[in-house]
């Protein structure tokens, strides 16, 4: 298990964009299980009006994808040496949204590394909340590494 402080050494993302809280399991080169707790204190909920319905509190799909992608980036970082490179989302294909997560839910990501080159990783993953399927990326999630971040 890797606690949050270890993740900061592996990813350049920081609060509030570091979207993984803890790594539960990792099998370098193969598989990772990571969690992120959704809370009402996050910036995405700051401007919701008091009368906003439950549905308006669904965690943004963009941040869900970011969180899943960061779990993949952690797996990649734990599987290879890429020094100070910044992992950036290169490509996504067939990311399917099956449900929604709300404040109080814990996202559980499981990501598999299918193929990695020095500057690119092909991954696939899924996200569940209490066993309920929230999202899947059945084919490809690419992460392009650029050492120069302009």
């Amino acid at each position, binding site marked *: 298990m890797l606690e949050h402080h270890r993740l900061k050494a592996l990813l350049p993302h*920081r609060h509030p964009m570091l979207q993984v809280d803890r790594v539960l399991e990792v099998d370098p080169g193969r598989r990772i299980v990571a969690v992120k707790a959704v809370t009402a204190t996050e910036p995405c909920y700051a401007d919701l009006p008091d009368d906003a319905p439950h549905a308006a509190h669904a965690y943004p799909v963009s941040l869900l994808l970011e969180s899943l992608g960061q779990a993949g980036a952690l797996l990649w970082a734990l599987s290879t040496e890429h020094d100070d490179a910044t992992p950036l989302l290169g490509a996504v294909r067939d990311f399917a949204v099956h449900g929604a997560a709300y404040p109080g839910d814990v996202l559980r990501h499981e990501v598999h590394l299918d193929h990695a080159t020095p500057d690119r990783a092909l991954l696939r993953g899924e996200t569940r909340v209490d066993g309920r399927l929230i999202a899947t990326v059945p084919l490809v999630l690419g992460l392009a590494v650029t050492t120069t971040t302009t």
Partner: protein
Amino acid sequence: MSFAKPLTAVEGVTAHGDGFRCARTVRADDPYLGGHFPGNPVFPGVFTVETVYQAARAAAGGEVVLVGVRSARFTSPVVAGDTLTVDFTLAPEDDRIAVDARCHVEGLDTARVRLHLGREAASA
């Protein structure tokens, strides 16, 4: 469900050619950018997806939600100060709407994003 918004990604959508256009200037003090990355604000690729989603939802009349990202390819980073322009089309596809978006900054392509929108009332 309509999903919360990590940031207001769209400032207005206008008709453009066969589809629509929206533009948004990225600011270093936009929500979340302080952590992406400290001292080096880069508009996250997922926020380009968010921008396309919010713009397409507005153009479609609002009663639709994001059900999938068919494909997204990011070819050039978008940084603070850039004005991200999104040109997109909407096309009915079975019971969904297919969105095809070209994202660019001053003519330089930054991403191609294709989404599926579905009717509201997906299971919570």
